[in-house]
């Protein structure tokens, strides 16, 4: 048992860094200077970012399990682009995405009761609530009421406006560009496409969402560094209250960036391996907590799925993959995963989504362990939400304009750099015409 007591110390130990001396300096495209967050407080930058990033990058909008059979659909609002999509499985089983706008007079085509809320279901066709124009599952306009009253109208020219759509490992991505600059596979690149995880087996889904008064990048940054948890979340449970964590801080065991994407891996050490005094009573009763069940799910074997633990570190606990621009997948050692989406609404508001995916519980005990795991997500995330609204206020004062980032904030620095690069690249292309 005394051996177990040492685990927090190990977690606080500094892991070996690349030969350059730091993760940051390992990447020549990054410098070590203080950074500016003007890109997170400027309405003008936000307008640019919509065009340069959100209309050019591949964006994840959901998973294929949400489209179980032919005719299954869901709508997905993209608030920062002021648009809504219909994502649907066609008669040919292909997943397509369309703008959710009727070609007649622009009514939002698919919604129920509240025009601003997302819906899902199964249907054979989409009929507009306004004048009844009807589209098939492939987006073709099939019916115009009193068609003879229109002037030489050609139905084939009035199909739903399609959006580029492709699927990787069951994740449905869209791209709003007229012609995407890269295929989804090339965009994801080798680090992400190396991941071969049995996503299709984790069908038990919990979905959170929140509207938060902060720039999406400022918010995202708190989920791509492990520098803040011992402090901001330092009261959550006895592990977090450990003086080792609070005095020495927490060290990420591995960072990697590739193209616009990045990953951070950390050691395990929680998950029921410590002495009971390190857990809240409910955690001990339900064998779960920060974050998720202590007992491995049925997908866990002695071999990690390909692509995980890319740094090949001992005591692997989790990988937090950040897929540019606003999507993250977090894999946990006990065999479940989380996704986060950070959707900009305005320059200082975001829609934050968190999905947790588990294997279907085989009994009440497993069900409760999942429920406690997802409950901790909220207790942590709400602490982040409150604080990041405060950070946004501090930044918007513009009293301070340059901010030092440490090596533990490698992923924040990389993300900031990539956004600025994409925007600069877009501006250059625009200037050339």
């Amino acid at each position, binding site marked *: 048992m005394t051996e177990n007591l040492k685990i927090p110390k190990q977690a606080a130990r500094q892991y070996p860094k690349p030969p350059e001396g730091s993760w940051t300096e390992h990447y020549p495209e990054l410098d070590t200077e203080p950074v500016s967050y003007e890109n997170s407080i400027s309405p003008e930058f936000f307008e640019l970012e919509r065009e340069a990033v959100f209309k050019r990058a591949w964006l994840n909008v959901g998973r294929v399990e949400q489209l179980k059979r032919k005719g299954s659909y869901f709508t997905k609002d993209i608030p920062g682009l002021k648009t809504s999509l219909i994502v649907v499985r066609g008669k040919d089983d292909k997943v397509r995405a369309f703008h959710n706008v009727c070609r007649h007079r622009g009514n939002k085509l698919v919604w129920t009761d509240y025009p601003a809320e997302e819906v899902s279901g199964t249907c054979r066709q989409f009929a507009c609530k306004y004048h009844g124009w009807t589209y098939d599952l492939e987006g073709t306009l099939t019916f115009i009421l009193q068609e003879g009253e229109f002037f030489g109208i050609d139905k084939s020219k009035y199909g739903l406006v399609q959006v580029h759509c492709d699927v990787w490992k069951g994740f449905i991505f869209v791209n709003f560009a007229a012609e995407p600059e890269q295929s989804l596979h090339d965009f994801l690149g080798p680090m992400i496409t190396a991941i071969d995880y049995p996503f299709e087996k984790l069908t038990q889904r919990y979905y959170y969402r929140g509207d938060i008064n902060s720039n999406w990048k400022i918010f995202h940054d708190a989920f791509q560094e492990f520098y803040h948890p011992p402090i901001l979340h330092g*009261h959550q449970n006895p592990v977090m209250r450990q003086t080792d964590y609070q005095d020495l801080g927490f060290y990420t065991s591995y960072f990697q960036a590739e193209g616009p994407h990045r990953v951070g891996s950390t050691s395990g050490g929680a998950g029921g391996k410590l002495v009971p005094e390190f857990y809240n009573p409910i955690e001990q*009763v339900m064998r779960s907590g920060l974050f998720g069940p202590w007992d491995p799910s049925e997908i866990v074997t002695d071999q990690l799925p390909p692509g995980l633990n890319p740094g090949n570190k001992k005591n692997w606990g989790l990988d937090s993959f950040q897929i540019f621009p606003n999507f993250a997948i977090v894999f946990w050692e006990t065999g479940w995963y989380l996704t986060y989406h950070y959707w900009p609404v305005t320059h200082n508001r975001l829609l934050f989504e968190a999905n947790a995916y588990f294997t279907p519980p085989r009994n009440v005990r497993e069900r409760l362990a999942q*429920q406690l795991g997802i409950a901790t997500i909220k207790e942590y995330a709400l602490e982040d*939400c409150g604080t990041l*609204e*405060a950070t946004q206020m501090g930044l918007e004062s513009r009293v301070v304009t340059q901010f030092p980032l440490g090596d533990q904030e490698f992923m924040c620095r990389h993300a900031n750099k990539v956004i600025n690069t994409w925007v600069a690249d877009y501006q250059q292309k625009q200037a050339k015409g």
Partner: protein
Amino acid sequence: MANLLPAEFSDLEPFVADWCLDSEPERYAKRLSSTMGEIQAFYDAIMPRAEDAMVYLDRFPLDALPEDAVRLLKLLYSLILMSFAVEVWKQPYIPDTGTAQFELKIEPFP
């Protein structure tokens, strides 16, 4: 009238009306609208029975729980959310969270 809870847990029936809630937003709203005294009384009643309740509930397949068992399970879902108020925060709300909202919109049942 059928019992609200399985016979072994009939002493917990007074908690059913207030604490058997269908969704996470309802449970969280209940936490915020309750006094620490009310939350503590609920926690003190359910927590010592949680292990027994799990043993009892595991006799049934998850997708075929009788109604009284589902109520018992819902008490455990409420226990999870209330435990943070009792064990961590010593108050119903999470400190420093202001008006931020973060709600569970899709939650499996049971």
